[in-house]
């Protein structure tokens, strides 16, 4: 008689499990499909979440935490805009805690503003590069917390006054590094200083300075860093003031400024007082909402799929009680039984995640075509596969443990 032979490497029972599975295709297919679709949804959702998060994390260029803005609308016959703006700004800049204040036509990330096209050559036939326009005076760079990385700031004497319906533009501009590189892709951004660009097809403006970074009002615009500063104050009925404060002073100053401005002139009303933080929160609300919804969907979906696996596995353990008892009687250890169910699930999950990989790519292609999303980075797929594998293994562990506790004596019981 042969005594216990040298144990070969752990025996996974691949063949018998597969053959048994083929006789119970439907259950296995159902789980595999669930895993595949769950993976498809989860991977694409995670990808969307990551992309949206990236958008939200982009540097706006301004001091998000310590800036706010408001609009002063004049009414009444005697309201003089330029004088009021001059008085207001003088007062605001003198306020303790205010770093700087400007009048501007638009506010970064607020989703409303002006855009123009700049050209490197004069004439209607040349292509223009779209850009957001912020009209600011010589305090603009300081108030917006941007850095001049080449050239220089506007001088006080550069600042002109824009009237309603005015068509022409000042002859100087400061543009962002991104804008400089889009206009002149072949030269170093620093060398763009001194170049002439054309607005309204033919009106020349000389680039006097380059700033590091500043975002346009429209957060979903693909060229969100294309920005130009124009040295102007505006004599519009509604004047927007943008104020940057010392850290921690914003909220106090918001109240204080509202009161000061309202009391200084009864020919106007103050509206739209809002911090940049709140503005960004509003502009990105769609993103935030999408992220939260997708996260919820992913969590629930994972739970549903896991519960489905637990349910079907428990059922199959119950169905196979006698068989498990017999296997135990024939010499299977508890570990062997656990391994059997885990491996069975692993095989089903493998089919699921392979199918899931294909479906994930298909859904991504559909999303790319229908909704203009970017193509999925490849590494999301293996990570997704791994996660679903783990979910499957975790879900089946409980039922497998239960199976292992079925006593071998069950084999001799006639149920």
């Amino acid at each position: 008689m042969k005594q216990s032979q040298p144990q070969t490497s752990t025996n996974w029972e691949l063949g018998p499990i597969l053959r048994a599975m083929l006789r119970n295709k439907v259950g296995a297919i159902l789980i595999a499909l669930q895993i595949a679709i769950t993976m498809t949804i989860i991977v694409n959702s995670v990808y969307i979440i990551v992309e949206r998060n990236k958008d939200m994390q982009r540097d706006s260029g301004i001091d998000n935490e310590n800036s706010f803005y408001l609009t002063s609308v004049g009414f009444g016959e005697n309201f003089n805009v330029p004088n009021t703006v001059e008085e207001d700004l003088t007062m605001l800049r003198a306020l303790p805690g205010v770093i700087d204040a400007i009048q501007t036509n638009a506010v970064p990330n607020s989703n409303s503003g002006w855009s123009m096209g700049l050209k490197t050559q004069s004439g209607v036939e040349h292509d223009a590069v779209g850009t957001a326009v912020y009209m600011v005076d010589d305090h603009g760079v300081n108030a917006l917390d941007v850095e001049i990385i080449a050239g220089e700031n506007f001088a006080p004497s550069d600042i002109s006054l824009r009237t309603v319906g005015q068509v022409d533009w000042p002859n100087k501009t400061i543009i962002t590094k991104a804008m400089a590189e889009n206009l002149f892709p072949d030269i170093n951004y620093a060398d763009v200083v001194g170049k002439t660009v054309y607005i309204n097809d033919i009106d020349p403006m000389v680039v006097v300075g380059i700033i590091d970074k500043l975002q346009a009002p429209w957060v979903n615009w693909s060229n969100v860093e294309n920005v130009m500063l124009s040295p102007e104050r505006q004599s519009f009925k509604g004047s927007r003031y943008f104020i940057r404060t010392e850290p921690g002073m914003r909220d106090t100053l918001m109240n204080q400024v509202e009161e000061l401005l309202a009391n200084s002139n009864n020919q106007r009303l103050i509206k739209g007082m809002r911090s940049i933080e709140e503005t960004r929160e509003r502009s990105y609300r769609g993103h935030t909402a999408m992220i939260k919804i997708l996260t919820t969907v992913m969590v629930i979906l994972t739970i549903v799929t896991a519960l489905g696996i637990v349910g079907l596995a428990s059922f199959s353990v119950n169905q196979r009680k006698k068989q498990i008892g017999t296997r135990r009687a024939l010499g299977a250890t508890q570990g062997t039984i656990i391994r059997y169910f885990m491996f069975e699930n692993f095989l089903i999950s493998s089919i699921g995640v392979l199918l899931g990989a294909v479906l994930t790519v298909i859904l991504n292609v559909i999303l790319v075509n229908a909704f203009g999303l970017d193509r999925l980075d490849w590494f999301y797929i293996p990570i997704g596969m791994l996660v679903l594998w783990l979910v499957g293994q975790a879900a089946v562990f409980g039922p497998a443990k239960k199976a292992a506790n079925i006593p071998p004596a069950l084999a001799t019981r006639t149920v």
Partner: protein
Amino acid sequence: MFNYYIKLAFKSFKRNPILSLLMVTAIALGIGASMTTITVNYLMSANPIPHKSEQLFHIQVDSWDPNNPFNDDDDALPNQLTWTDATNLTHAKKALRQSAMSMSGAIIEPQGSESKPFEASIRLAYTDFFAMFDVPFLYGGPWDNNSDSNREQVVVLSKRTNESVFGGENSIGKDIVIAGRHFQVVGVIDTWEVMPKFYDVNNGPFNETEELFMPFSLKEDLELPNWGNNSCWKSPDGEGYAAFLRSECINTQMWVELPNAQAEADYLDFLNNYVRSQKELGRFPRPLHNRLNDVMEWMERQEVVEEDAKMMMWLSFMFLLVCLLNTIGLLLAKFTGKSSEIGLRLAVGASKADVFKQHIVETACIGLVGGVAGLGLTLVGLQGIKSLYGDFVDDLATLDASMIVVALVIALVSSIAAGLYPTWRACNISPASQLKNQ
């Protein structure tokens, strides 16, 4: 017999409470997720003026840059008109009703010291606006044609404006100071929220209707600011507000009412002729291309339904699919567990059809319970949407009767569909094999 099946369904429910609960939960989650997104999409794409949406047309004319189309899409036409064209077309009166319109705003200074001045949004339009869009009036009515042509300072107030300025009383004939001028109130409209706000979708399709309505012709006199979108392909010829109005910048919407196909064809002819005559004046440098869009075509073209909403709807359908696969698996497990009972029933003379009916009823019960629970989850989901997106979706996140029916139908149909295969399997159990081993 049906009642007996219902009774059996609940017995079976009780015997396997965890499995049954899992199925109900899965269906409820799937229905909840889908119904939440379906509701939002349904309300976003709702017909705001169903009884005449096919007689109202938004006009598009290609007045754009000779070198570049309005946008990259070949078929794209400018989404608004110039002040000049909208005014000319309205004055031509070639449609049953017509109105150029745009959005503006001004300060209202209520008389009497207790109320402070406030800023109000204005819809500038012609008198036809009210009849064309069936605007309901609380007091008074629209201004007349003469007010349009004589540029009279008359105004129609929204119900809310009337409340804040006149305390909600009948204010017809009263004086109100807007943008520093004296206006006479001619009408107060009743609550009128169109969803989507189809007549001006490119300035916020889900925004509220304006607080004031006044003759479009006053825009020029009062130099009212442009609150909506303004796009230009060439800068105005000359300085000042008048030059801006007469520029090639587009900032005006134009709607006409055309009662039938003949009127529609005639109007398009007229429109083409108008553009030809403008071409002779050196305008409209692009090829002749004009279009009339009825309300729903316009909503579609302007992509009023948010892409995120559509995307979430498709994802939620996939979610429902996973939940249904889950249910199929669990039903299969449940029915297989019952095979001895089924064998017994077959052995004592039940037909396959009986067994089939019994189990379809059982599945439908699970689906119905899941559907009702799903409706509850839909309410939770819609509440979640409201809290995530803020006030502007309030009207987009409400459940109406038809949506409730849709939810229950989807729950029932999908659960029965999920139950078909497990039921079929249950019916095909051989009676003998099941009795032997008991």
